[in-house]
């Protein structure tokens, strides 16, 4: 099973580096490994906004532009939406590509 590392920065500045499975999402990797602050209440179905993260600016171009549903849900987040806001259920782990995300101070 191929793995890669996701670095989760908490609102208080701690960094949790988690070895996740390629193909899983950043949301699932967090929830499975007990990283608090990412809730993922809808299970990755784009019907809540509780897995909001800020993705490192230089890693944004790795993903295609977000679709309309994600865009709409990001207008519903508890913490402020920024230019680098993404729903972490839509970010899949890829071989050889580490990711750096910051968890907002509120999800719900």
């Amino acid at each position, binding site marked *: 099973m191929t793995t890669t590392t996701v670095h989760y920065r908490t609102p208080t500045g701690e960094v949790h580096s988690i070895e996740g499975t390629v193909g899983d999402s950043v949301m699932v990797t967090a*929830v499975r490994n*007990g990283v608090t602050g990412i809730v993922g209440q*809808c*299970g990755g179905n784009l*019907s809540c906004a509780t897995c909001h993260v800020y993705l490192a600016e230089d890693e944004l171009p790795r993903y295609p532009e977000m679709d309309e*549903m994600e865009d*709409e849900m990001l*207008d519903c*987040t*508890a913490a402020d939406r920024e230019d680098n806001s993404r729903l972490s259920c839509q970010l899949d782990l890829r071989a050889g590509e580490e990711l750096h995300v910051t968890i907002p101070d509120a999800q719900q």
Partner: protein
Amino acid sequence: MTEATVPAGTEYPFAPMPHTEAIEQYKRIAADRPMTRMTMPFGGDVWVIHRNQAARDMLGDPRFVREPFRTGERAVPYFVEFPDFLKATVQFADPPEHTKLRRLVQKAITPRSVNAMRDSAVAFANELIDAMVAKGPPANLVHDYAIALPIQMLSNLLGVPPEDREKFEKWSHSTLSVAGMTEDEIAANMMELAIYMSGLIAQRRAEPRDDLLSALAAARDKDDTLTDDEILTMAILLIVGGFDNTANFITIGILSLLRNDDQRELFLSDIDGLAATAAEEVLRHGRMQMGLPVAGGGGLVPFVATEDVEIDGRVIAAGEAVLVDPSAAGHDPQAVETPERMDITRQNNPHLTLSYGVHHCLGAPLARMELQVGLSEIFRRLPGLKSEGPAEIDMNNLTQPVTNLPVSW
């Protein structure tokens, strides 16, 4: 019928026992197996999932649907007979129809929009406390506080004008399990409520305001459209789901704090800082802290498997029903550290009381805000609040509500 043989101490369902023993039983069951097949009082057999991760796997899997319940092809296995009007709601729809209906409402009940309602919730909670204080102790906290707050918030959200609040409350009250009305009275009130809401929907379509009904009516003109009937059904679901359950958890939360001196002292020392985590702990564990025996069996609204699906090593066969027991999942040691302990500071609290997946509680942000405000304001104003007798519970009802909680201060 339950499984033929299970190890001693892991029987499920189980009869009422002291809550500490019930939690130990839940822990042993989760260690032994992910799910148990049980026969419900209505609607036949269902798999009940005990483990938190297995529950998430099922709730997040689109191969589990509710269509056969909605069409009547299969009865809903549950404690009580499921009312037909609930089967017509989004709760029993599957994607993609479900997605369209839900997203339109979800836009109005977001953490941000709900936050804007927080100030008015705080003000209204304080009005209710003023009235309780003026009348003097003892008070029935369910009637005087826990029920009144959610109905006011629902009126604000839906856009029921102040002059209509009294009748709206009377009709909506009949959907409440604590109301104790006859079936004829409930039917008459529900009919009046439906007629009233239909009129309000038509008004808002003609003259939109800044409320949910206007937003839903307006959504008709875009790509996603809703018929008046769909809006009405949605409004009724919000009233039924948002009123009774929220009132009940406000009561359970206050009661569980009254019964745990250390947690109440802690809460009083930092109400604003702890309101959010305290509310989550009440959702996960509050029912265990009511000073009443706890029975195990059943849980959230079921699903049906569309094909054979393996969950945590067990196959749920095509056509079989499955549901999650949130009490078990909230006390699964694999997911929750020292689950037997009430800890209002708990940071990692993956309870499933508001469900998970596409059908997770639509009103969750509103319910959370009301629960936080409901707990905070009563203890802020009346820090000496105390119980004046046992809570009364209606065990024969769908939501098993507390009907009376006598308190003084």
